[in-house]
């Protein structure tokens, strides 16, 4: 019995939230059932009745999901820390724009987001019902059932000791066993939440998840069409499905690349793509969806490749579910840096996957022999033949990627201990570069092929110009940009060159195709624009990755005393360089100075770095920052900063920093020296080279000055000079110390010991508290803007295709 009266709790939003999740669960079940009855009933009046009921249920469900969304946002926005979700995902200091990121930091919120998009898409389907023909109630049945499954994920009910879902509306005191939570006034004691993970405090994290989840949610619709088609053995849904499929591929692609942009801007692996399992899991459905779109087009034009189209559409959605399982079950643990942690829902997640996989494949194989393919063989010079090859290659490339990504699953099932290869990214790159070559060549040439067959003369005539232009542009790119990537041997380097040609060919041939064959009409431009964008993405990836250079290449620490046998065993690193505050450091093409650092109101610490290009003396500033980690983690997370040029990015991030906060307690150690003598300090030696008498002509009258010229050589072979001195004014002696900050040395000229022998006393102080320093990495990414521009153009192409195909439906 719980009789404690807790003070200041706001229980109503949570209770409302619980009610709404249960309402959405029930309503989606009713909608699924009613849409199914409508779909299968043969009587028109009965079908209309079921459809009406189903629509009401779906509408109620949508209202429930949207309200749930609002309630949860209300809880986060008002910092109601009695709720675990608000406590664990937000804090009071968070700027408003990141409150939405809190929402999808947790699994529950992201499920809700996914569900929200299904509602939006479902309502659009209902509003435009007439266009979708008989498939309508079948598609809605599938959407409603997916909604039901998603609702179980956030309902948080216990059924026979089994936890079903994890509710975002649980109270902190229900979930935690901290002693203070038993106190009636515990809310007085909980001052603030644990905050949003610092890595997610980035504007891309506000927009990337909604776009990605819209992409995920939209794959449900083509899947629904495919299910409906298989159930009814009617394959006339392809026209209706195509705009949904192109929309889905466009949004999913955009969402994935926004994630890449986030990784580029806020993660510090120095790039936009790392073949991380989480990235792969979202890329793979996109690849199969593109295969599906092409399969679908082939079927509409020729009646061929029906089975593959069903397979591709089905598997695209199933791979979305599989990626959900991979990223949320914690199974990726050791291989991915950014998977969700295990919420104890693995069984349920697996169930969510299997409840779609098994029935779909059973249905697919039951219908397999009923799916007639034309008897006539595709001609080898026909468009459909090569489109099919392209789709198959994309599909198999997806199979290869997901197989490699699934190693942890394999380990789990078979108890093996297989780990990724030494260079996991290269293992992918060496395969995918060939996929890029073939796909590039096919998208370019394929546009000029005709269905059923093409004459050679036609092809030669049409391809002459595009090929010529491609060769010229490629030659220019080879000469002026080239490939700087030599580490993996001549074979891979050659493949990159060929892939560059293929990418340029894709761009050029599709521009020509649109200008000449399609008469530059926008309505038919979807595929050309999409392919141009795809070519640019490929070219941008190839150039920026193969020419990425490390600017902060560091040769200190490679001691001349240490004999290195050939290459370092670790390969390349040594990419960090140390900058001392106020000291200009040589970094390849630039001289870089760590000028100062400042904090903003969120405790973000910005380092001001001044870059001066040696050749042009042009200066610019970069401000990489670090933010103190939250959630019980020590340390800092670093955010890179880049200088964007039209043709390259200079990309910098801080890898560690050290403050001059320690008190300086060391004292000067006196040393006797004569000219030409050397003394050792901890990291090298100091040589007295010269004593200058009155080197400064403009000294005040009556003063004499002695300045020492000291040469400091560190163990690493770095040379510095220091010139401590003394100024004599009558009997007054003033000592001017000098420092070698990079070696933490303070040097003073104490006195002359024996004028005749020329022995002097020099004070040496080694202090670790001398200066602030940072270590950083800097890269140059050439032509990375080509990649981002390509993404925008490709998305635009998918948009045009969606618009033109959807408006054709209206005309029917």
């Amino acid at each position, binding site marked *: 019995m719980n009789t404690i009266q807790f003070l200041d709790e706001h229980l109503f939003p949570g209770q409302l939230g619980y009610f709404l999740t249960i309402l959405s669960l029930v309503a989606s079940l009713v909608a699924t059932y009613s849409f199914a009855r409508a779909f299968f009933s043969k009587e028109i009046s009965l079908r209309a009745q079921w459809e009406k009921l189903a629509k009401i249920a779906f509408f109620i469900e949508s209202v429930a999901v949207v309200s749930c969304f609002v309630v949860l946002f209300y809880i986060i926005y008002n910092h109601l820390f009695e709720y675990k979700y608000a406590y664990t995902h937000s804090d009071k200091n968070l700027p408003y724009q990141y409150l939405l990121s809190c929402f999808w930091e947790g699994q529950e919120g992201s499920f809700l987001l996914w569900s929200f998009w299904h509602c939006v898409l479902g309502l659009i389907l209902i509003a435009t019902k007439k266009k979708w023909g008989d498939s309508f109630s079948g598609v809605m049945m599938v959407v409603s059932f997916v909604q039901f499954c998603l609702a179980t994920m956030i309902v948080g009910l216990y059924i026979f000791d089994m936890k079903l879902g994890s509710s975002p509306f649980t109270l902190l005191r229900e979930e935690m066993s901290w002693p203070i939570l038993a106190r009636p006034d515990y809310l007085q004691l909980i001052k603030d939440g644990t905050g949003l993970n610092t890595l997610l405090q980035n504007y891309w994290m506000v927009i990337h998840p909604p776009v990605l989840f819209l992409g995920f949610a939209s794959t449900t619709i083509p899947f629904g069409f495919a299910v409906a088609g298989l159930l009814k053995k009617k394959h006339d849904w392809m026209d209706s499905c195509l705009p949904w499929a192109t929309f889905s591929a466009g949004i999913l692609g955009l969402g994935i690349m926004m994630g890449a942009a986030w990784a580029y801007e806020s993660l510090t692996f120095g790039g936009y793509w790392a073949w991380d399992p989480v990235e792969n899991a979202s890329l793979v459905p996109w690849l199969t969806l593109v295969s599906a779109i092409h399969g679908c087009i082939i079927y509409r034009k020729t009646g061929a490749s029906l089975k593959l189209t069903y397979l591709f559409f089905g598997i695209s959605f199933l791979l979305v579910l599989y990626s959900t399982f991979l990223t949320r079950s914690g199974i990726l643990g050791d291989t991915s840096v950014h998977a*969700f942690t295990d919420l104890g829902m693995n069984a349920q997640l697996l169930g969510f996957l299997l409840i779609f996989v098994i029935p779909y494949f059973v249905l697919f194989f039951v219908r397999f022999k009923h799916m007639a393919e034309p008897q006539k063989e595709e001609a080898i010079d026909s468009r459909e033949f090569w489109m099919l090859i392209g789709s*198959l290659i994309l599909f198999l490339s997806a199979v290869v990627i997901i197989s490699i990504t699934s190693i942890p699953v394999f380990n789990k099932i078979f108890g093996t*201990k297989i780990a990724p290869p030494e260079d996991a990214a290269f293992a992918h790159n060496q395969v995918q570069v060939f996929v890029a070559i073939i796909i590039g060549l096919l998208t370019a040439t394929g546009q000029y092929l005709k269905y059923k067959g093409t004459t050679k003369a036609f092809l030669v005539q049409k391809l002459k110009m595009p090929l010529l232009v491609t060769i010229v542009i490629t030659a220019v790119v080879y000469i002026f940009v080239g490939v700087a990537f030599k580490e993996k041997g001549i074979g891979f380097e050659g493949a990159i060159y060929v892939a560059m040609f293929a990418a340029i060919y894709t761009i050029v041939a599709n521009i020509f195709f649109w200008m000449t064959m399609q008469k530059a009409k926008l309505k038919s431009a979807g595929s050309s624009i999409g392919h141009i964008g795809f070519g640019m993405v490929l070219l941008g990836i190839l150039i920026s990755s193969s020419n990425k250079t490390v600017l902060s290449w560091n040769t200190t*620490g490679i001691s001349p005393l240490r004999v290195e046998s050939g290459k370092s065993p*670790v390969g390349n*690193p040594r990419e*960090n360089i140390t900058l001392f505050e106020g000291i200009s450091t040589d970094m390849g093409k630039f001289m870089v100075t760590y000028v100062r650092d400042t904090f903003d109101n969120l405790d973000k610490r910005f380092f001001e770095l001044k870059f001066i290009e040696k050749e042009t003396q042009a200066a610019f500033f970069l401000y990489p920052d670090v933010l103190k980690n939250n959630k019980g983690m020590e340390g800092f997370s670093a955010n890179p900063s880049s200088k964007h040029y039209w043709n390259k990015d200079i990309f910098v991030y801080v890898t*560690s920093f*050290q403050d001059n906060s320690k008190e300086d307690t060391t004292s000067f150690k006196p040393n006797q020296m004569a000219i030409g003598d050397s003394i050792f300090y901890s990291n090298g030696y100091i040589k007295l080279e010269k004593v200058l008498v009155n080197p400064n002509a403009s000294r005040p009258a009556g003063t004499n000055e002695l300045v020492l010229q000291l040469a400091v050589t560190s163990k690493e072979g770095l040379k510095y000079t220091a010139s401590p001195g003394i100024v004599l004014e009558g009997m007054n002696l003033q000592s001017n110390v000098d420092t070698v900050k990079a070696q933490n040395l303070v040097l003073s000229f104490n006195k002359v010991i024996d004028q005749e022998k020329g022995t002097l006393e020099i004070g040496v102080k080694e202090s670790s508290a001398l200066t602030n320093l940072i270590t950083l990495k800097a890269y140059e990414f050439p032509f990375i803007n080509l990649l981002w521009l390509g993404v925008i153009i490709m998305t635009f192409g998918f948009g045009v295709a969606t618009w033109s195909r959807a408006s054709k439906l209206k005309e029917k």
Partner: protein
Amino acid sequence: MKKTHIALLVLIAAAIVVLISYTGDLSSYETIASAKQKEGKFVNLIVKMDKSVPVQYDPVKDPNLLQFNVQDSLGSKISVVYHNTMPTDMEKSERLVLKGKVQGDVFECSSIVMKCPSKYKDNPNAMQDQPVTISN
């Protein structure tokens, strides 16, 4: 047989070849003892920090040299050299996944994946231990 079927089979065969050749590159998770026996071979170690030996990192001398000691669940220990900066939070993490090779007495590490009490997302188990600041 249709040409498309031949193409299909050829492509599937290619995909299988790719996957099989990939398995040749795969590495494995090892214990420190078994990694020592496979000197020079690229392996993965799952270990935790050996806190009895201090971590050595001095960016003033060399920002690309980190030395520390680790031990695995069987209790064997090894010292690690990592030519990079010290990852933040390394000393706090419960578990490290090190990739690299044993060279002589040391493990030459090429990458470190950290498993922190709350690495990326909140972890309910870690939350249980988290002290709450009480200010009366």
